[in-house]
Every structure is written in C-alpha cells, then in structure tokens.
C-alpha cells in the first residue's frame, strides 16, 4: 500500500481515538452526576433484545462502545457489500469530473 495513502488513515485513527478518549472522560463525568439511573424493564424480553437491555442496564459504557462500534462495522459492511454487488453487475464507480 502507498505510504501517502496510509498517513491520512493513521491521522484519522488518532483523531478518532482522541474523540473516543474525550467521550469516555465526558461520559464518566456524567456517570458521577447520576444520569445513568434510567433502567429498562427486562421481564418480557428474550434473545438479542434481552442481551441489549442487560448491557444497557448494567454495563452502560460497554453498551455505548458496542453501539458506536456496531454502527461503524455495520456501515462498513453495507458499503463493501453494495460495492461488491455493483461490481458484480459491472457498475464500478470511478473518479468524476467536477462541473459547476
């Protein structure tokens, strides 16, 4: 892989980590203020819903990290899948000419 292409990715990763770091500190601050008091009822839940509800009630930090990471992973997976499907039908995206 070209080094010039790696540098922006590394910078982006560092910024992302910094943002997550700041968010964790911010979140801990809020935890101390008792904003995590809200709990959901798990009585009628099962499967994935129950798992999410337990995570939400008992491990809020993991719920937050899980939500953020799963949205990112899901987004990347969809983007790759769509690219794959489009390429399969011969629809590849290329650089476009900018017209004003």
């Amino acid at each position, binding site marked *: 892989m070209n080094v010039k292409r790696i540098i922006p990715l590394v910078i982006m990763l560092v910024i992302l980590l910094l*943002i997550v770091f700041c968010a964790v500190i911010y979140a801990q601050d809020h935890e101390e203020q008792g904003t995590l008091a809200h709990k959901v*009822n798990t009585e009628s839940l099962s499967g994935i819903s129950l798992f*999410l509800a337990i995570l939400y009630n008992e491990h809020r930090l993991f719920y937050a990290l899980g939500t*953020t990471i799963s949205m990112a992973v899901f*987004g990347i997976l969809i983007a790759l899948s769509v690219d794959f499907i489009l390429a399969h039908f011969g629809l590849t*995206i*290329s650089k476009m000419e*900018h017209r004003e």
Partner: protein
Amino acid sequence: MDVFNIWLPIAEIKFSVILLLSIGFCVGTLGGFFGVGGAWIVTPALNIFGFNMSFAIGTDLAHIFGKSIIATKKHSKMGNVDVKLGLISIIGSIIGVELGAQTIMFLEKVGDVGMVVRWIYMVLLFGLGIFMVLDYLKATKAESSTDSDTGATPTKGTPISQKLYSIKIPPVISLPASGIEAVSFWVIFAVFMLTGFLSGLLGVGGGFILLPSLIYLIGCPTAVAVGTSLLCVLFMGGYGCFSYAMKGRTELIAAMIMLVGAAVGAQIGVLATRYVRGYGIRILFAIMIILAGISVALKQAYAMLETPWLGTIAGIVVLGAAGSMTLLIFLKLLRGAAAEKKQAF
C-alpha cells in the same frame, strides 16, 4: 399493520419497521446528495411518530454515523473527499462547537436562550438559502451571457474565497483535491471554527452550515464540498453516537434498521451527484434549507402562540420537503443514467 411493528427494548415503544426504513431511505438520499447528516429531518420525524425527543436525537446520531461511513466511502471513490481539508475541518469544528456550547452555557445564566437560538437559526437558514438562490440566478445569467458573448471560462472559487486566498499568513498549504493552489492554514481553521461555533450555539450537527462554507468561503467544487462535509459529519456523528449511548438515549435496533434504509438511499444520493452539476446541487440545497427555515418559523410561532397545530404543520413541512426532495433526486439520477446510456450507444 401490526406485523411490521417491533418492540424496541431500550426506547420501550412499539415502532413500525417500514417507517424506520422509509425515514432512513429519505435521509440517506439527502445525506449522500447534500453531504449533511439530516438530523433536522430525522429527529422531528421520530418524535412525531412516538419517540421521546432525547431518544430521537440519540438514535438519529447513531444512524448518521453509520450512514456517513457508507456515503463518505462512495464519495471518496468518486474523488469527492478532500481528506486534508476534512481533517482540518474536524479539529476546527470541535474547538468551535465547544466555544459555541460554552457561549450557550453563559447565555443561559443571563436568561432563556431558547427563543434567541431559534431566531438565529431562522436567520441563518433563510439567509443562507436566499444567498444561494441569488447566487444561482446570478451564475445562470452570467453563464448565458458568457455563452453568447466571449466564451470565457469562469474563475476558480468564489469572489469571497479569492479574497481569503490573498491572506497569506504562514503556513500556506495547498489542497489539490479541491483544486486550491495556496491558502493559509489559519484562514481555513478560522472558517471551520466559525461554522463549529454556530453548530455549538444552535445545537445542530452543522452539515447545513458546513456545505455552504466549503463552497463559498473555502472555494471547493460543490461535489468535493459534499464529500468533505460528510467526512466531518462522520466524526461528529461518531462522537454524538457514543455520547448519547452513554447517556442511555440511543435505541440500537432502530438505528440499525434505519441504517439499512439509509444505505440504499445514500447510494442513490451519492450517484446522483454524478449527474447533477454543482449549481444544480446548490439550488436544491437552498430550497431545502428555506423549507427547513419555514418549519423552524412555524415552531417558533407555536412556542409564542401556543397553538399545537402549528407544531404539527412544522413537522409536516419538513417531512414533506424531505420526501419530495428524495423523489426529485431519484428522478435526476434516473434521467442522468438514461442520458449516459444513450450517449454510450
């Protein structure tokens, strides 16, 4: 129909899957085409159909994060993302947002700032919208006279960006992806701090401020402005998603379902930018933010007159605008693709 309704365990409400997919699809299309997160559409939509306001914001931010990844990747393939500019925008915006938020905290001590914020929001939406419409009309007029008279090509950037380029405070950087040869780093940084400040002050994602800023102040081509704006929205969405999830205000299942709809919509929105020229995107964006301004004005009237039906109309205006614009973008894509196919044969 109950068969399409699912129980959302965290928000603790029953919600229609079809509705979530539709909202996701609409906002995905608009996001891919305009480079915005679309919180001003999703939040009222979820709220109108039964979500608690804070859950609506948190769930929306989570889906914006996932959607922005999809749309940014696609725009990047089309050469529409200026990574260097995007990174500067993120740093500048974060500082600006914090300054804006601190200003709100200060103003809150003085008195009720809600009304003031809504007025600034309205002025900004109508001001930007009208400015962009006038710019479009001016450009159309100039284009027709250029075609008939001299055949000269238009200059790069805008008159405002040209003036900003002349400020040469070191370090001076180049942005090849945006076609900018030399611009002071501090000028760009200041622009993003200003847009971030406005976002923090108004409590909005800021895509609708960032896009015109990239076009008119920085002088990016419209398609690059859309892609780069999405890169910034991606980081803001990621931070917002985590922050709201930590506060327990994100419904993961709803966000995932919306993301499926948004993924399809984003493909349509991004591909449509291929067939619509820069000024076409600008005028549609201007119409969209003027309609959003009307919606905020109705909300303001509702707050002042305390007549509930004005609030409902405000929601209908924003949802109607989003639906109509999605349809229009889809038609533009179909027309462009058909014309391209015809040209190929």
